[in-house]
């Protein structure tokens, strides 16, 4: 009897997705950027996008984060008060507001995501002001709090990022993006260009913050160790297409697509 009462589902059967991409394609003239990509991202979920250089990872990320318009396909996002809406049909001010309040974008090169001639504290504080914070003392306190969270010394709060090391700049960029408590954060090669020891520290920090805050993230990287640590799910890209996707450990430990097998077998151990 009791066996009959058990249903083959779990939790709430319908989950309201945070983002849904459908048939997203983007070319540069004859060159394919990404081709016919579809997926759904749930709140709090971390998706990794892997693939060799030129496979279309950054193109896809730039479309998803509204930095680039797709040729075809749609990207819908669960807007507060409005529900799922096509982000490319929003008015320019609405899209800007979305990007400022609900999203964070961590660029591979900190120069693209930081204001190099503004102090570290200012870089974090101006994001709070952009969403309406006005109280100077609170902004400064919150800024200092975030510097501590990303393990930057409080004594550097008035220094400009151009005096920082690459790893410090990247941590500052993360603080600048997380201070507004976004629901979704986009990261393109967040550990690229950093020394291995610096990478480990940054990864550990990101892992802690993403879990603690419960934010969703889309992380592009060519480094399988990064996704092993950070991502719940994985999409493997090749020539612009997603060739395999699934749970991160499943894709890495039991890859099915020839290209994924090649990718996994060409690193020593992840």
């Amino acid at each position, binding site marked *: 009897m*009791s066996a009959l009462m*058990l*249903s083959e589902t779990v939790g709430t059967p319908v989950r309201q997705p945070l983002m849904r991409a459908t048939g997203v394609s983007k070319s540069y003239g004859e060159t394919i950027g990404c081709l016919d990509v579809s997926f759904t991202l749930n709140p709090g979920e971390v998706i990794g996008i892997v693939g060799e250089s030129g496979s279309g990872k950054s193109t896809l990320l730039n479309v998803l984060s509204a930095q680039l318009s797709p040729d075809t396909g749609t990207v819908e996002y669960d807007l507060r008060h409005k529900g799922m809406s096509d982000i490319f049909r929003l008015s320019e001010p609405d899209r800007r507001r979305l990007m400022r309040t609900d999203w964070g974008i961590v660029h591979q090169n900190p120069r693209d995501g930081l204001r190099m001639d503004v102090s570290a504290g200012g870089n974090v504080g101006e994001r709070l002001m952009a969403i309406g914070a006005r109280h100077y003392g609170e902004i400064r306190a919150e800024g200092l709090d975030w510097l501590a969270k990303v393990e930057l010394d409080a004594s550097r709060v008035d220094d400009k990022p151009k005096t920082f090391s690459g790893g410090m700049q990247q941590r500052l960029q993360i603080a600048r993006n997380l201070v507004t408590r976004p629901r979704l954060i986009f990261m393109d090669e967040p550990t690229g260009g950093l020394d291995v020891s610096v990478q480990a520290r940054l990864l550990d920090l990101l892992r802690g913050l993403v879990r603690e805050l419960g934010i969703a993230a889309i992380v592009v990287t060519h480094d399988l160790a990064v996704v092993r640590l950070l991502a719940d799910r994985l999409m493997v890209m090749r020539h612009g297409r997603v060739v395999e996707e*699934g*749970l991160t450990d*499943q894709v890495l430990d039991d890859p099915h697509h020839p290209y994924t097998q090649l990718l996994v077998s060409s690193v020593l151990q992840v």
Partner: protein
Amino acid sequence: MPPMISVSALSKEFVLHTQGGARIPVFHQLDLEVTAGECVCLHGPSGAGKSTLLRSLYANYKPSSGHVRVVHGKDIVELGSAEPWQVIEVRRRTVGYVSQFLRVIPRVPALEVVAEPARLAGVPDAEAEKRARTLLGRLNIPERLWDLAPATFSGGEQQRVNVARGFALDYPILLLDEPTASLDAANRQVVVALIKEAKARGAAIVGIFHDAEVREAVADRLFEVAAYRRDAA
């Protein structure tokens, strides 16, 4: 009461595309049921497919065909067709897995490695840490190591941290891949005690135990994985 784990007609074959498409059939049409409080020992020679079956029960390996169903709270989840977030939920609350080797996370101290699963399942920080301390203590990890990342630990110490992590939460289902492999007799007995306690509280356990003494102490029955080779009679 339905079995906690129900495997039906499960087949697994690896296709190695990087090696000319070589096929490695592991098992074929395998059935297995494990009830609450029962401990099943996967048996057979090296390469028989014991770890492959265990990983399939954790949805770490995808079945070629067939089903793996587990009782998860009030529901039954079929792991092969479940969405990734559902599998993650099942792993968070229902199925614990002690892999053969600890996967070391840079910079995360042993105490946190052990406390993390309980914390992610919603156990308050203080309680999760207390439980982690108790387990590390019982498994004879010297207290001076608790705040260090296990990267520099010996093989046996890493394995004990791994075991502690697997028992940090009272999972209804536990999967153990050679949990005593590199342990001395005293620590083997600690693991035996942990397994017996888990059985007593009703956990369904599937394990691989090479040590005959451990096997006799904990296993209710042996399951011959090699009996499910495609060419087996």
